[in-house]
């Protein structure tokens, strides 16, 4: 959604952008992606109105007499979970958490990672040493242990998870961006920019960054899935959203061992995560294609 807004507000200012956005809208996959994202964001925002049931209500009729959850059916469209709660409602409410983690926290991580990588790759010297060794340190840092300690020391909250994720998840992005920047900054057109007296930031953001876009996009969107799942692990260790608050990740996590007997409990939340990540990826991909100079034009 934010992507859409940015594009819209910038449209009048820059003609090219407008063209790009207009072209974006002509792509079927991009439209599909926008719809996917809109649906998920809508679900998150309007959960109380959209969800058929209270997500935390443990229905008496939500379990069989032996205590097994119900498969998808007429009352509970997507079935119930192991406590007899309505899965659909839980998924709808869970969208909030998952969006905050997958989009916001992951977004911050991506931003941090890209910045660190690009700075280290471009400046070399001590900047490189400090930043990249710090990245190594963070990568090797026992994140789970950190989570456990935080969990035991602080009141669990979504924001701690978001923070932990933002703290540990930027390193991969930093590594890849760093390696690519190292190569890019030796390219001749960057040399040419330098010879014109272009400032560092101009070179970095106007000339190097666009070339990194595809890698950033790949990592950013795949990061959605991994962070949503990571959130589940962290909740499990006690620092994230705590039961009964649903999140897609923790629904999967709670139920994964049951997936041979109650596959819907893993399948639907899995689908939701894929839809979210795919939505952003398709959109990003379409955006990239639209912005790709070699792909514009028609016969």
């Amino acid at each position, binding site marked *: 959604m934010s992507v859409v807004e940015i594009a819209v507000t910038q449209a009048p200012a820059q003609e090219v952008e407008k063209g790009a956005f207009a072209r974006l809208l002509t792509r079927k996959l991009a439209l599909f992606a926008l719809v996917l994202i809109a649906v998920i964001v809508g679900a998150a925002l309007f959960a109380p109105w959209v969800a058929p049931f209270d997500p935390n209500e443990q229905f008496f009729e939500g379990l069989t007499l032996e205590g097994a959850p119900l498969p998808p059916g007429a009352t509970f469209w997507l079935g119930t979970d192991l406590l007899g709660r309505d899965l659909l409602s839980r998924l709808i409410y869970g969208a909030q958490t998952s969006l905050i983690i997958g989009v916001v926290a992951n977004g911050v991580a991506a931003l941090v990672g890209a910045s660190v990588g690009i700075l280290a790759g471009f400046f070399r010297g001590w900047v490189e040493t400090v930043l990249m060794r710090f990245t190594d340190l963070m990568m090797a840092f026992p994140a789970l242990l950190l989570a456990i300690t935080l969990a035991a020391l602080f009141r669990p909250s979504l924001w701690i998870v978001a923070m932990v994720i933002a703290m540990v998840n930027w390193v991969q992005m930093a590594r890849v961006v760093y390696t690519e920047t190292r190569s890019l900054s030796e390219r001749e057109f960057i040399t040419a920019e330098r010879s014109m007296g272009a400032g560092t930031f101009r070179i970095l953001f106007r000339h190097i960054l666009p070339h990194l876009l595809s890698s950033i996009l790949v990592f950013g969107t795949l990061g959605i899935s991994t962070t949503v799942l990571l959130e589940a692990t962290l909740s499990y260790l006690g620092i994230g959203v705590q039961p009964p608050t649903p999140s897609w990740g923790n629904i999967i996590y709670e139920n994964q061992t049951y997936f041979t007997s109650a596959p819907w409990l893993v399948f639907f939340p899995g689908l939701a995560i894929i839809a979210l990540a795919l939505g952003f990826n398709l959109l990003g991909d379409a955006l990239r294609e639209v912005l790709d100079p070699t792909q514009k034009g028609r*016969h």
Partner: protein
Amino acid sequence: MSTLPPEPAVPSSLSERSSRVVLGVSGLQTAVATPQGRKIVVDGLSFDLHEGETICVAGESGSGKSMTALSIMGLLPEPMAKVVGGSIHLEGRDLTTLPEAEMRTIRGSEIAMIFQEPMTSLNPVLTIGRQVREAVLAHEPLSRREADARALEALKAVRLSEPERRMTQYPHELSGGMRQRVMIAMALACHPKVLIADEPTTALDVTIQAQILQLMRDLQKETGTAIILITHDMGVVAEMADRVIVMQHGKIVEDNLVRPLFAAPEAAYTEELLAAVPKLGALAGVDPVNAHAGTAAAAKVLEVDDLTVRFDLRGGVLNRVVSRVHAVEGISFDLHRGETLGLVGESGCGKSTIGKALMNLVPWEGSIRVCGEHVLRARTAAGDRAYRRNLQMVFQDPYASLDPRMTVGDLVGEPLVIHGLASGQELQDRVAGLFRRVGLTPDQMKRHPHEFSGGQRQRICIARALALSPKAIIADESVSALDVSVQAQVLDLLKELQDELGLAYLFISHDMTVVEQVSHRVAVMYLGQIVEIGTRRQIFENPQHPYTRRLMSAVPIPDPARRRAVFDVPQGEIPSPVVPIGESVSRVRYQDVGAGHLVAVA
């Protein structure tokens, strides 16, 4: 499925030559996709290429020459560009409809091509040796060792110094001309039936150019190769062509044998083109004038003293530095306001490196002063900016030096934005103005670099350098890809700016006639050192150093009547600037042969 190849659809139009038609192009139409829709860039092109024949294609920059070549090779950048009409017949097969798998067997072995831009056309991460070897292996069942030998031979044939070492180097470690020679070596390695050479010698000095042209002739004699030579150098056309095709706006305006064409051009455009051809010695006896020489401001814009640039070469298991390229060795010269210093010299002798050192892009030693201010290697951002405002460079390889993701309008406007000189509408207007001045139209501003022809990109780079109105410009082979009429136009522009603003140029070029035309003073370089420096008249009318003399004599003359049967090709060991670690090169000493005309003594 007949076993006999069918007769070419289009019979030969020129019947004086009785030999076989190897390549028949008829009604070729090639289109590119643009946001506005399809645009035809090659329009109804027809010609026949006979065995052993050389056709030179000349014409306006951007007239579709490269597109034609790519169409024949089946290497258009699909799906953005494609052949939309006509046929191309190679020995009975229509290449426009041939499946890719079969096309592959034809490329390299039957038709080979030398691309216009050598930097971007070589794979940056593979060694030269590998890239040449591969060309051989693709079509001949040789062992790796044999292929290596062949590759080495090919590199020797194009007179690359230290070919063994070059085999292990990467493209970015070679000079522009060297890369071009690698391209040539790759194309020639398999003795193709048809060779398409797109501006193959633009980055070569005239002596090596002569060598390459000789190589092509030899090949033709031995194997009957037919050659399509795309060039704007009318001297080369006169030397090489059997027939000449002149193109403009995607169409053939004239197709004629070389002598009649030079003697009595039919098309008005041809006439215009020939008229614009500069001739060596045309300015003999005329003193160059510097409009700013008299003013007090005739200060030195550039003072270079004892400039030295060396590159480390690594090798061995430990990847230690084993030897050094003494690319630039103790160069000193000054450049005054309103003056053009022509810098000529053998390919790979360090000309571009001087430029890069002046721009502080490679590590260097010595002293450089721009407008009296010392350039320091360790610099502050602000000081850096100021000196770069005064000094700009046009890089030798225009395509590689343009950010492919930006529109050319933005690229040209970039320096103005960087130095905060213009913005908004003013910026647009100034960029549009620059476009017009280099012969481009402002409506092209929204396009990206890959949508332009080689010559057009070169002009974009010039426009970019001019944007800042610096005090001095280093122009590295900046007009080499321009057809003579556009070239003349650009040179006029440069001259005009010089007269108006007192711009100084360090004009690096291989084209001696152009150098003669624009330079006030000329420096001749050889193996990283200046061997002769003096005023234009001193150098051109009284060349002293043997290398200078050789250069002069190798310049092709744009008159088919005076075509040389054999080129004067230097023999023996090719000198190299690579020196093992610990050794140093001996510096030349200069002798003043009169009025500041310095010549190196051995």
